[in-house]
């Protein structure tokens, strides 16, 4: 009885062990199946248009057939109509291709990268852990799996963060590139011939590419950096002396109250700008790059005068120039 009992216990334990292994194996298999079987959630509704058929129908606008018809037309109105047909057909084709490109970038890629990496890791883990390997070996494999999974997730997070930014840049660039085309559609054929439209269409097509988007993003970053580095530096000696001379000019400046007087002062000081330091000339140029103050823009005149006086090197000569110019502007009004 005792032997039979021990045998029964052993069988029971073996059955329980097998059952536990079976359950674990089943759970791992289900997990792997779930990961492998993840249907990509693209984030886009299904397109009701048969885009392949549409692209086939648009082929004459790319193979030269429609262009030959355009060139054969003599009537300017008909030529403009045919030009517009070609332009709109090409834009439609580019839009279809871009939408497909966008879908694949954002949708399928997004869904498969992490899933694919994790399935690979799960399968590798199964191979290492379901046999009769030693505990140490199993732990090592599990650890490697965790590290690998972390790497996969990091890679996918970078991807998820980068692609939407590039897509947004591409869409912005495409809208920008579309502007001259939509403007050209309203023009006569003589003013916006098909050859010019092709150049703009090429720019529109290229705007929807990743290299163009990366270039645009880098250019924006470069512009921001340039702006940050555009601070205009002055080396001063005495704040006290600067303040005294500033105050004497600013007291007279308050005599000028009308817009016309400010513009007159800006014009009166203009001949002296060339004698000022490169930094000061840069400051004036930065505030009023188009010289609007000299064409009657009182707001620009005020901005330039305030900054110029504030940053000027008030030598006796410069100070006298200001006082004379202010007196002249006051008399002239």
């Amino acid at each position, binding site marked *: 009885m005792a032997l039979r009992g021990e045998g029964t216990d052993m069988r029971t334990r073996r059955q329980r062990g097998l059952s536990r292994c079976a359950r674990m194996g089943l759970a791992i298999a289900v997990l792997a199946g779930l990961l492998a079987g993840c249907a990509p959630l693209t984030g886009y509704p299904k397109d009701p248009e048969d885009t392949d058929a549409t692209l086939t129908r648009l082929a004459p606008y790319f193979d030269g057939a429609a262009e030959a018809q355009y060139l054969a037309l003599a009537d300017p109105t008909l030529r403009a109509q045919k030009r517009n047909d070609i332009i709109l057909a090409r834009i439609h084709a580019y839009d279809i291709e871009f939408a497909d490109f966008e879908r694949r970038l954002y949708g399928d890629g997004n869904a498969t990268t992490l899933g694919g990496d994790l399935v690979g890791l799960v399968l590798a883990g199964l191979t290492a852990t379901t046999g009769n390997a030693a505990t140490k070996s199993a732990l090592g494999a599990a650890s490697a799996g965790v590290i690998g999974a972390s790497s996969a997730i990091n890679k996918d997070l970078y991807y998820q963060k980068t692609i939407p930014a590039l897509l947004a840049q591409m869409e912005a660039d495409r809208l920008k590139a579309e502007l001259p085309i939509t403007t050209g559609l309203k023009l006569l054929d003589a003013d916006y011939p098909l050859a010019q439209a092709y150049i703009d269409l090429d720019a529109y097509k290229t705007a929807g590419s990743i290299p163009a988007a990366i270039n645009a993003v880098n250019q924006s970053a470069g512009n921001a950096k340039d*702006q940050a580095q*555009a*601070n*205009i*530096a*002055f*080396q*001063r*000696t*005495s*704040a*006290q002396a*600067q*303040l005294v001379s*500033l*105050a004497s000019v*600013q007291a007279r400046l308050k005599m000028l109250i009308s817009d016309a007087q400010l513009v007159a002062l800006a014009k009166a000081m203009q001949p002296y700008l060339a004698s000022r330091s490169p930094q000061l000339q840069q*400051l004036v140029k*930065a*505030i*009023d*790059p188009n010289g609007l103050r000299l064409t009657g823009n009182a707001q*620009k005149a*005020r*901005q*330039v005068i*305030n*900054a110029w*006086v*504030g*940053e000027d090197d008030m030598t006796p000569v410069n100070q006298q120039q200001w006082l004379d110019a202010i007196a002249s502007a006051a008399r002239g009004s």
Partner: protein
Amino acid sequence: MADTTTVDTYPKATNTKAQVQAIADNHVANGAKSSVVTEDATNWILTTVWPGGC
């Protein structure tokens, strides 16, 4: 519209912070959007933002 920033450097050896602060106050009273005094080891640094620019 963007603004234009100037950075004036005054040697600490020949200027006090109060003198440079007076320049900052003068700038703000005469059209500057802001004018702030900071310092490094040897200089008072006056950073002023003037309205207007591209």
